[in-house]
């Protein structure tokens, strides 16, 4: 079988096997199939990667079959593997397999073990479709599919209605983005005549520009990306998505699905290079999202929510990079982020596991000595996300900041400044998290404290691997690897001498964040509580997440419901439409009732009428005779 098709089909087989046979064949079967197939997919990816090197950069292409032919339009299901696909697929299958292994420990005691792994494999299948698809159509199939898997996994413990609702919120918010995606797709097809990524990029890079505004298409597709990658204004589903099991949060809402939007823009770099307005929009939205999410993360008290907002913020950074034309750098950040964010989420899972389900960091503390492996890996990942050298996050974040400053495709001091403040906040809230969870004196209650224990090796082993990757992953210079596909944007020559100072500044920022976190949280919550009282208003605003959810409910949710109920149903259907129908039938009945009064039952009346009729017809005949 063809290699790319194999990579895609292996997790699908896992989904079917575990879904149909899993409950009957027991946990060992599910574990072997559920983890084994992703690992095999990873190995197949490595093989494809090696093949790619062998072909000197030309992409591998496989066509599975023709989906539909309508007139001049041909829609094929085809796969495409180039350097960008390689990076994405390696992350998905690699980190994905690690998270599958972790899950065997985390979900060990769950009754729906088989269902969990089948959904996880389903997700992997769709995600691979997304990044390996040659055309926007296949990408869209994967795009919606990962939305489905996300829905199923967020609402995995569906007996809790709140969790089920979180899943629904994710799906609907994604759908809004998908509407934009569809429109962009239609417009693109109309203008270019194909949905294949390579052809689209070539069309826009070529001498004759297609007869459609690249920026319009760019913005529409970006709307889809905001939905999937949780950017403003469609970011509201991600924090709620923390209702799902923690490995799900790690895989879907940190390492892979949410990066789909970044992948889409990076993949269509040929289009976006010709769309300066769209790129501008992307950069602005990216930096705003990054900033706002970081401010919210500062006051969150649930360990997973901090990480969720952190993810939104880091995704914002990736979009900043995309917005200034540094596509390879954005993908680099996807790559490093996958490592340290997955490590952080899985570490959080380990903490939650140790704390018998507690997620509130105000009730933690002093865990460093009790769960050392979790602590060390978490600390490494935290340092990575804060951008401390020589960890992975330093390299990728630093390049983003540099290009935000100096890129000739939209870089500006303002952009860089906001991004740097966000980086400061990132360091602050992440070290805050680290301190409150692990290093401050314990605030745990007796019973929980008694049960604290390190997680099994299936979990800690993965944590170690991810921590190592977070530490050394940055030395693989992904942007350089992607350069043939996505050249780095030109930077303003006049500013080049500032590169080194900016790097130093970035490191200092990270250290400042660390310092501030230690200062505020060293002894526990006391100092923080005093600050909270001093800035009560700001704290309320941030804790309330800027009340965006409430705004959406008030402006969209309730009016929709009200209009549907009051105007459409009661007024429209019942009063107007059915009312007029009943009016007509009532009219018919009343008229019939009145007319039937002619039937008086009186024989003589009938005779009279007959006689009158005869007279009338005679008179008529006499007149018209």
């Amino acid at each position: 079988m063809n290699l790319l098709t194999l990579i895609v089909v292996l997790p699908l087989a896992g989904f079917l096997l575990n879904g149909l046979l899993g409950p009957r064949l027991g946990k060992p079967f599910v574990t072997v199939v559920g983890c084994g197939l992703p690992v095999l997919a990873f190995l197949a990816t490595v093989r494809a990667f090696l093949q790619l090197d062998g072909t000197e950069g030309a992409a591998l292409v496989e066509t599975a079959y023709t989906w539909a032919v309508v007139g001049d339009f041909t829609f094929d299901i085809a796969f495409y593997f180039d350097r960008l696909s390689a990076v994405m697929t390696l992350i998905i299958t690699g980190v994905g397999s690690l998270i599958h292994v972790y899950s065997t420990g985390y979900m060990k005691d769950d009754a729906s073990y088989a269902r969990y792994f089948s959904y996880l494999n389903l997700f992997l299948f769709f995600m691979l479709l997304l990044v390996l698809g040659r055309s926007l159509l296949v990408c869209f199939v994967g795009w919606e599919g990962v939305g489905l898997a996300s829905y199923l996994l967020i609402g995995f413990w569906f007996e809790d209605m709140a969790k089920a609702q979180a899943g629904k919120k994710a799906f609907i918010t994604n759908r809004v983005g998908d509407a934009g995606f569809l429109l962009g797709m239609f417009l693109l097809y109309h203008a270019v005549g194909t949905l294949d990524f390579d052809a689209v990029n070539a069309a826009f890079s070529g001498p004759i520009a297609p007869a459609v505004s690249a920026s319009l298409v760019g913005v529409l597709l970006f709307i889809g990306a905001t939905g999937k990658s949780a950017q403003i204004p469609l970011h509201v589903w991600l924090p709620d998505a923390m209702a799902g099991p923690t490995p799900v949060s790690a895989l879907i809402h940190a390492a892979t699905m949410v990066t789909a939007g970044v992948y889409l823009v990076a993949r269509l770099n040929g289009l976006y290079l010709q769309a300066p307005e769209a790129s501008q929009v992307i950069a602005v939205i990216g930096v705003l999202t990054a900033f706002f999410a970081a401010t919210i993360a500062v006051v969150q008290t649930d360990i997973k929510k901090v990480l969720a907002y952190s993810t939104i913020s880091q995704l914002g950074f990736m979009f900043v990079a995309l917005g200034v034309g540094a596509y390879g750098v954005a993908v680099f950040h996807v790559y490093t982020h996958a490592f340290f964010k997955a490590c952080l989420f899985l570490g959080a899972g380990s903490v939650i596991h140790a704390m018998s389900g507690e997620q509130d960091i105000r009730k933690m503390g002093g865990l460093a000595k009790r769960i050392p492996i979790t602590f060390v890996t978490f600390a490494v990942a935290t340092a990575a996300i804060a951008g401390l050298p020589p960890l992975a996050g330093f390299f990728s974040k630093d390049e983003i900041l540099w290009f935000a400053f100096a890129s000739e495709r939209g870089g500006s001091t303002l952009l860089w400044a906001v991004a740097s403040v966000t980086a400061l906040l990132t360091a602050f809230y992440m070290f805050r998290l680290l301190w409150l969870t692990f290093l401050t004196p314990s605030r745990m209650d007796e019973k929980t404290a008694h049960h604290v224990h390190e997680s099994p090796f299936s979990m800690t082993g993965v944590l170690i691997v991810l921590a190592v990757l977070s530490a050394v992953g940055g030395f693989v210079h992904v942007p350089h690897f992607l350069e043939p596909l996505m050249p780095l944007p030109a930077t303003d020559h006049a500013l080049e001498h500032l590169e080194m100072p900016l790097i130093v500044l970035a490191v200092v920022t990270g250290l400042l964040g660390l310092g501030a976190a230690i200062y505020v949280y060293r002894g526990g919550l006391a100092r923080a509580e005093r600050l909270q009282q001093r800035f009560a208003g700001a704290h309320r605003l941030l804790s309330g997440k800027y009340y965006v959810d409430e705004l959406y409910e008030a402006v969209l949710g309730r009016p929709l419901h009200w209009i549907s109920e009051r105007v459409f149903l009661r007024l429209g259907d019942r009063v107007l439409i059915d009312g007029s129908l009943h009016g007509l039938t009532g009219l018919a009945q009343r008229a019939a009732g009145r007319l039937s009064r002619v039937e008086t039952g009186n024989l003589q009346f009938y005779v009279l009428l007959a006689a009158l009729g005869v007279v009338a017809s005679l008179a008529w005949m006499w007149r018209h005779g």
Partner: protein
Amino acid sequence: MDRTQLLLTVSIALFALGLTGVMIRRNALVMLMCMELMLNGVILSLVTFAAATATLSGAVLVFLVFVVAAAEIAIAIPIVLLLSRQRKSLDVGAYSELKG
């Protein structure tokens, strides 16, 4: 007015009287008698025309009408009889179940 016109006037008068009787009188038997009156008016007009045009067809038709009238009375009167046994009344207004 000549003889034909006079006879026709008489026959119309008979017919009209009969019709009026049917419309006004409520007694079933009287209504039947008035219907006979109407028939007689028609018969008279038939005979008149037969005499006026000196053909026989009108007169022959009279016999047909006689027979039909007799048959009709033969059926109508027993019906009225049976109905009146039911309702104990010859008033036509008593039989109005088919109204509305």
